[in-house]
């Protein structure tokens, strides 16, 4: 019951912000959020904004001001079915994640790739596997990346050290690669999928 109450609160606050956005054509400031949601402290607003940011309802820019995300479209977020009896199963399932949602963080920047080599077998990526490649992510050290090194394409661990960049295989039969001229990263591997039957 407590959870439902919280959810209702979050929903009505989101609606208040959405209403403000559509009425005024801009996002509210922190103090305005406090005013329209009835929150009394800036800290409470901060927590609410954090929560909504995680749900991709809105975003903050570099200066901390709010930017509309899904709130800009008149789609009901956190939507549960309003008509009929609220079934307990429905309430619970409203928050469940699809396999797609789990594997794909950024749907408009994710590509498929069928693996042909075995240089990443130690990382559990085998020939014939499908990997999901995100072009929108910023590659970090330790990520598995799809990269073009001196004109050759490869999938390896990216290791950044102080000055140099190294591409490491996960198979003792392959040598680490140190880019001589050029390194272009096409995307970060975010998941591997293998279907057995």
């Amino acid at each position, binding site marked *: 019951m407590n959870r439902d109450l919280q959810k209702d609160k979050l929903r009505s606050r989101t609606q208040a912000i959405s209403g403000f956005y559509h009425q005024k*054509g801009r996002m509210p400031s922190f103090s305005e959020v406090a005013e329209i949601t009835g929150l009394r402290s800036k800290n409470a607003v901060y927590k609410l904004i954090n929560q909504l940011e995680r749900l991709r309802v809105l975003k903050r820019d570099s200066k901390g001001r709010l930017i509309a995300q899904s709130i800009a479209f008149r789609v009901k977020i956190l939507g549960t079915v309003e008509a009929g009896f609220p079934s307990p199963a429905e309430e619970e399932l409203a928050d469940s994640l699809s396999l797609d949602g789990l594997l794909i963080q950024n749907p*408009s920047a994710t590509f498929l790739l069928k693996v042909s080599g075995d240089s990443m077998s130690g990382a559990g990526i085998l020939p014939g596997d499908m990997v999901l490649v995100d*072009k*929108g992510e910023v590659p970090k050290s330790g990520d598995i990346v799809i990269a073009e090194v001196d004109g050759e394409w490869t999938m390896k661990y990216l290791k950044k050290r102080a000055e140099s960049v190294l591409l490491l295989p996960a198979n003792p039969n392959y040598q680490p690669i140190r880019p001589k001229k050029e390194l272009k990263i096409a*995307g970060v591997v975010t998941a591997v999928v293998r279907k057995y039957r």
Partner: protein
Amino acid sequence: MESQPLTVSSWPQAILHLDADAFFASCEQAIHPELRQRPVITGKERGIVAAASYEAKAQGVKRGMSLYEVKKVCPDAVILPSDYETYSLFSVRMFEILRRFSPDVEEYSIDEAFVDLTGLRRSFHGPYGMIARKMQETIEAELGITVSVGVSLSKVLAKIGSKHNKPHGLTLIPGTDIHIYLNNLPVEKIWGIGPNTAAFLRKFDIITALQFAKKDEGFIRNHLSKPYLEIWHELNGRSVYAVTAVSKSSYQSISKTKTFTPPSGDKAFVFAQISKNLENACIKARRHKLAASRLIIFLRTHEYRDFGVEMRLSRPSAYPADLFEKLRDGFSRIFHPLCFYRQTGVVLAGLVPDNKIQYTLFDDISKIEKMVRIYDTIDRLSDKFGKYTVHHAASLPTKLQTQHEGERGDIPKRVTNLFRGENKRQRLGLPMFHIKV
């Protein structure tokens, strides 16, 4: 006179037009990174150039050129079969990215969009140019294709902007600068003005877009029709054509055509092709809950001569079983046994919502309802198992011959390189990189 601005306000409203650069070829270069900076051409299955990358255009390849000619002017061109599935995925993603910036996105065609940016400067804390630049950068980073963008006060002007500097251009035309861009632009380059109107305008010494824009309203009203008056307003920075954000669900007509090689003179085969066109068009009409009140069919001979016939239906319908009689009737009127045909097509016209159908006095309602149930079931089977799980026997002979025999029969890599669980009709809705790693 030439240096006098057409309007004094810079941004009473801001409309952006975005046009992908050599879209199909760019998509191919995005999923085949080894093809970047190389001349790439799509349209192998059609025998002509559907799209050419800028590298190919630089060597003299033009749209619509035959592939035989391409091999002469650009021997190192990479010629690929069209992969519409991938292009559509890129297109949908491109529009999704645009919607992150503004809810008012009009999907004008597969590779073109209009976006209303008016009022967004404050939520992005920057000028319109910065918003446009960000859109361009996001599309480039996430999709790996480049786009050209124009921002101005109206759709017509935004389109002039996006064409101004292609590829990868960004052109802003504020109200105070419109005259600069129109001064050197021939009048026939304006969106909506064709060669005939341009020739007509030349009789009044109107050569450039600026001369056209500077004419007074009386002249336009006296000599031209309403659409040109609208264009004239748009050129003067007064937006007439609104950006309509609704996705395309209202159709004027639905058409389905298919080309096959080699051309065929086999009546059963050609009829099967047109029957499949009809089934296809009806599936699309049913998906949009529409029904056709007119049926147009046409055949194209191997000498590119078209024969067509238009038929009025007694009751609007989107069920092939309803339309087959008319189809057969029209087909027998235009089919000549001594001709070879390379293309068939069906157009469903006079579309009305399928819940507003007026039955005629002689319709057997129970029979129609039975038919509706059958097609509902077929549509559900198709959803579950892929298109054409169940189809009419008349369409069967299409299997007599593959769609394109010989070299043109190449199919896109995405269709041959399947994952376990994918099949010929149903694949994951994500574009696929073709990189060997």
